[in-house]
């Protein structure tokens, strides 16, 4: 006695979905065309930047040869004697100091925001971190050069006096036994520049770590507490393993920022074009700071050399960023990205 709907038999026989047709109106075609053009313009602009840098930079590298470019410490494009060994080392050194300071600070702050703080404290601290990310770099640079540096040189001196036996903490040309307070050899160092850069990358690291810690599932958290774990135990067994991708990804995004930072380093360091292994010693450099220092006195060929340095920096930051986003994307489960 069941009702047979017309067409049901036929559908059973073939069992294929009814073909759907999307009819686009004329204005939809226009809309698609306009957005496509917008995307195309963006693509063209970005490709222009990349190709322009690559074209000029590779040309300049070709003049001295890639091997020479990577190993020469001097920077004298006028005599065709230039390489990025010294500035690249300086960039990495400053970024390493910045990471060593910023990473524990960011991890602690992110855990404090998600696990310890509650209510208004949690909310206002989150806003504060976002605000810190928006502070212009010149303000950080001024703070580092005029406030942090005079106060931190004593710490630098203490560090090199007591731990000078560690090779990279050694400072040449000072007598630790001298009773005079001579802090000049400790100023304008990679260490101080790294400290300022650390404060600039803490916000991005913290916000990414916070976001990943928030995603740690409540069930597992409560399970850990129910088994008698303290908050530390819960963090160690639930929050950190679930947030590992966020920790690594956030740290690497911070590293990308640290490598590209210019003005704060420019204001603090006294530039040298030689590899300086001593972090606490006066004299450091970075690719970005060198571009800011050298652009105005550059002619056509020197510009090519700066482009080569800029290209190197861009390639490195791009690799770091792509790795970071790949790690973060893999740590996220697919279900969450669905609205």
């Amino acid at each position, binding site marked *: 006695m069941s009702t047979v709907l017309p067409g049901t038999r036929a559908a059973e026989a073939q069992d294929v979905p009814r073909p759907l047709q999307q009819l*686009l109106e004329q*204005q939809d075609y*226009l*809309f698609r065309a306009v*957005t496509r*053009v*917008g*995307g*195309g313009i*963006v693509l063209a602009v*970005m*490709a222009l*930047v990349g190709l322009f*840098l690559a074209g000029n930079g590779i040309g300049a590298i070709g003049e001295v040869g890639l091997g020479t470019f990577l190993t020469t410490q001097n920077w004298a494009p006028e005599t065709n004697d230039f390489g990025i060994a010294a500035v690249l080392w300086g960039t990495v050194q400053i970024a390493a100091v910045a990471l060593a300071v910023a990473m524990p600070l960011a*991890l*602690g*702050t992110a*855990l*404090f*925001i998600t*696990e*310890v703080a509650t209510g208004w404290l949690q909310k206002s601290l989150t806003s*504060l*971190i976002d*605000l*810190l990310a*928006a*502070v*212009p770099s*010149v*303000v950080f*640079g001024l*703070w580092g*050069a005029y*406030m942090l540096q005079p*106060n931190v040189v004593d710490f630098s001196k203490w560090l090199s006096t007591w731990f000078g036996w560690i090779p990279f903490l050694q400072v040449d040309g000072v007598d630790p036994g001298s009773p005079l307070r001579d802090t000049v050899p400790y100023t304008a160092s990679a260490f101080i520049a790294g400290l300022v850069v650390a*404060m600039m990358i*803490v916000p991005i690291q*913290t916000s990414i770590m916070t976001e990943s810690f928030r995603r740690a599932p409540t069930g597992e958290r409560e399970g850990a507490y129910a088994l008698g774990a*303290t*908050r*530390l135990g819960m*963090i160690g067994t639930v929050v950190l393993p679930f947030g590992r991708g966020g920790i690594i990804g956030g740290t690497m995004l911070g590293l*990308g920022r640290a490598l590209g930072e210019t*003005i704060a380093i*420019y*204001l603090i360091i006294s530039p040298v074009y030689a590899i300086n292994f001593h972090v606490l010693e006066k004299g450091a450099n970075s690719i*970005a700071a060198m*571009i*800011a220092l050298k*652009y105005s006195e550059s002619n056509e060929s020197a*510009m090519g050399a*700066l482009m080569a340095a800029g*290209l190197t920096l*861009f390639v490195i930051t*791009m690799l770091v*960023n*792509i790795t970071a986003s790949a790690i973060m994307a893999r740590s996220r489960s697919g279900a969450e*990205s669905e*609205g």
Partner: protein
Amino acid sequence: MTATTDDAPVTLQTTRLTPAAEPLGPATELPLLAKQSGAPEEVRVRLGAGRHHVFSLAGAAAGGLGMGLLLTVALGLIPLGWLFIVSYLWFLLLYTALVHLRQRAPAVRNSLMTVLLSSAGAAVAGTLGLVVMFTFARGQDALFHLTFFTTDMTGVGPLSGLDQGGVLHALVGTLEQIAIALTITIPLGLTTAVFLNEVGGRQARVVRTVVEAMTALPSVVAGLFIYAAVVMSITHQTNGFAASLAITVLMLPIMIRSADVVLRLVPGNLREAGLALGAGQWRVVWHIVLPTVRSGLTTGVILATAHGIGETAPVMLTSGFTGVMNVNPFAGPQTPLPLAALDYVRSPVPEMVARGFATAAFLLSVVLVLFILARSIGGQDAGKQTQSQSRRMAARSRRDLPRIQRNHARLLARRAANPSDNLQENQ
């Protein structure tokens, strides 16, 4: 029938249980009631800090500060600058010992870690406070002269007092450059984000990858590109337009990324509802998707503006240094605020350094205002409306009603006039 007999005692019991019913003779004491009338249930889990916890924190803090003062001020064994570090270390030691008196190892470790995490949060917040306060403190001498905001640096010598000279030219420069940058960035960024989300396809994937890669572009390299491609080969002198182009190259990926993230939050069923009602793709985007995420998009624009205003390195290469007002962004150097701050502090004259700090403080307050603005707008979730918004929407739909009625009446009239048309539509 059995059901009724079963029901009867239950009703009786419920009347007994209500306290208002007067008991006739000795009533049955139910164990549940007995417990409720007794002592309040013991609180088994207490959240938050206990009293001994607060006391040990306060005690350890006082002890740490005391030890620090003793070693630095009273005995002079350690320089005064170390007061804070010594006090903090002694505080940690004392606190661990105090907790250890009452609790076992895991709890001690937990308490110590809580203190360390709080210290990290306090250190970051404290640094922001230090940066802001230091900038304002050093800049206050120049900041509280009205001329600082109403004049440029024309005729201001190195020895002129702080009541002469100002940053009006830099303010104008910043406003013009960010305005040009936003005029390019907002339409282009939004169109691209809509393209990535609503149109899609292979080209969209390529664009997304390239935009992703471009967020890694260091700001100074963007400046170098504009310097080489525009300033050196086309204009042959630094100008404000080149600076705004450099800012645009940096802001565009940020803008597209933030708009892309926000657009992804639009629930798919909202789009489908629009399509099911017969709207075309363009109408769905314009009337449903974009209004839904309006607050998120506005926040993205404002935050991108805040970042764009603070960019220093790219404008340093492209805008050039000048102390004179230049309202034309297409000719001659036009210094924006961050660059003016940088330029002034490089001078050896204390007055100029004070002006530099005042400029930085002014820049910082502009960014702060923009940030607060973005926060107050961005507090809403996607699709949620405030009361005034929903009132406006109701008013709009009331305004739409006559139009719909008019159209309906016209349709009826047409059908009445032409019955065959009516027949056709019903088929």
